[in-house]
């Protein structure tokens, strides 16, 4: 199923992320796509807040993976710098598929390597601070999350 949400500014993007975060549990995988500055990291900061993680959520573009350990473990990845799928293996990608909530930025670059069931969220820049977030789910599990979010 598909569902589009609109946010007026960074704060609202973060708030939507927090609402999503509240619905997630370990083993979940969110694949984010969209241009530079579209709000992917702000959204992930919201997810962390929703999960009860208080740490400063900084961008993983350079570090590739940032981990946050609290009552749950969040792995925030950014695969923009990766040149090929082998490099994804080399950063230990498989180790994060169990026991973590994974949020991956620029996930379309490594589509072939992702789990079968993921929740895709595409960020579109509509105006200076106006954003459209398109949620695409390919499984009953993520359908349910998107439905609960719409309420």
């Amino acid at each position, binding site marked *: 199923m598909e569902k589009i949400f609109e946010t007026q500014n960074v704060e609202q993007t973060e708030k939507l992320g927090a609402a999503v975060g509240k619905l997630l549990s370990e083993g979940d995988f969110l694949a984010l796509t969209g*241009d*530079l*500055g579209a709000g992917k*990291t*702000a959204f992930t*900061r919201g997810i962390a807040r929703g999960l009860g993680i208080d*740490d*400063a*959520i*900084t*961008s993983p*573009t*350079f*570090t*590739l*993976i*940032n*981990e*946050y*350990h609290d009552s749950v473990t969040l792995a925030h990845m950014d695969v923009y*710098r*990766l*040149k090929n799928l082998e*490099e994804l*293996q*080399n*950063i*230990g990608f498989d*180790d994060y598929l169990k026991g973590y909530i994974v949020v991956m930025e620029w996930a379309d670059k490594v589509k072939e390597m992702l789990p079968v069931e993921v929740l895709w969220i595409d960020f579109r*820049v509509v105006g*200076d601070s106006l954003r459209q977030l398109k949620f695409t789910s390919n499984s009953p599990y993520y359908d349910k999350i998107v439905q609960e979010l719409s309420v």
Partner: protein
Amino acid sequence: MKDKFITLGIETSCDETSVSVVENGRKILSNAIFSQIKWHEKYGGVVPEIASRQHLEAISHVTQKSLEDAEIDFDSIDLVAVTHGPGLVGALLVGVSYAKGLAYALKKPLIGVNHIEGHIFANFLENDFAPPFLSLVVSGGHTHLIYVKDYGDYELMGRTVDDAAGEAFDKVARALGLGYPGGPLIDQTARLGNELAISFPVAHFKDEDLSFSFSGIKSAVLNYLNHQKQKGLSIVVEDVAASFQKAVVDALVENTLKAAEIKNVKTIALAGGVAANSRLREELTSKAGTDFLVRFPPMILCTDNAAMISCAGYYRFLQGFESDMTLNAYANLNIFSNN
């Protein structure tokens, strides 16, 4: 302690595999960095840009090269120091496991070092500089303002709440089509532009809050580029680069000087890859005037290297710290805890 105490340092926290030999904590005998060695001539193959687990293939070669450059053998090593965080766990583990094996086999002490602490210690190499001072650690992955009261005694005064400064450079360079890595490219391009051409907002926090935020400046640049395109107006890349760089440098300099005043230190020490930025060096030196002495490590010691890890490890060892065989890698190791 011996006249010549030899520390072997190992760094594998991100892209670089580096091994270094340092004498008495300050004198660099060797500082081998994988990406800078022409391995393909010797071993064939291309150096991977994202090293990570490929550190595994490189580490024994880089260690060998480091010992050869220093003209010592394994028996001369008195201490093995290794980065155990923060960084990529898969990458860190290669260095940590190798260091443990080495220390165990040589029957020498082992010490785990924090990567950010290592960057600060790059300032101690090859000179007699000492605490207290204020350090601004700016790189692709970190933006930390740290008061160094003494060796091993730190206070975090400010850090980024979103993007690291180096990352903002990379992303704006990407948007301007300049390439990667963005830091040096923006620096070069900005020299040809007018830094007063466009006013990009610098995020400000309350007076006592010395946090940084660079995500807003990045968005402002992207919005500017979009607006110009929509209106069919031309974009002067040099002016955008210069104006963006000014905004970032102003924010860094302002908070750094505030922190230095609060702590009443005489010296400010830059560290990390962005410490190589010419505008940052100029502006900080100029604004510091005669109130503060500003210093920065040589370029090769600004970016990730093992010499800084040897140095930091040596001083931790002098303070009585020692790691055992349970030493582990931590992705988000905190500089202010002694684990």
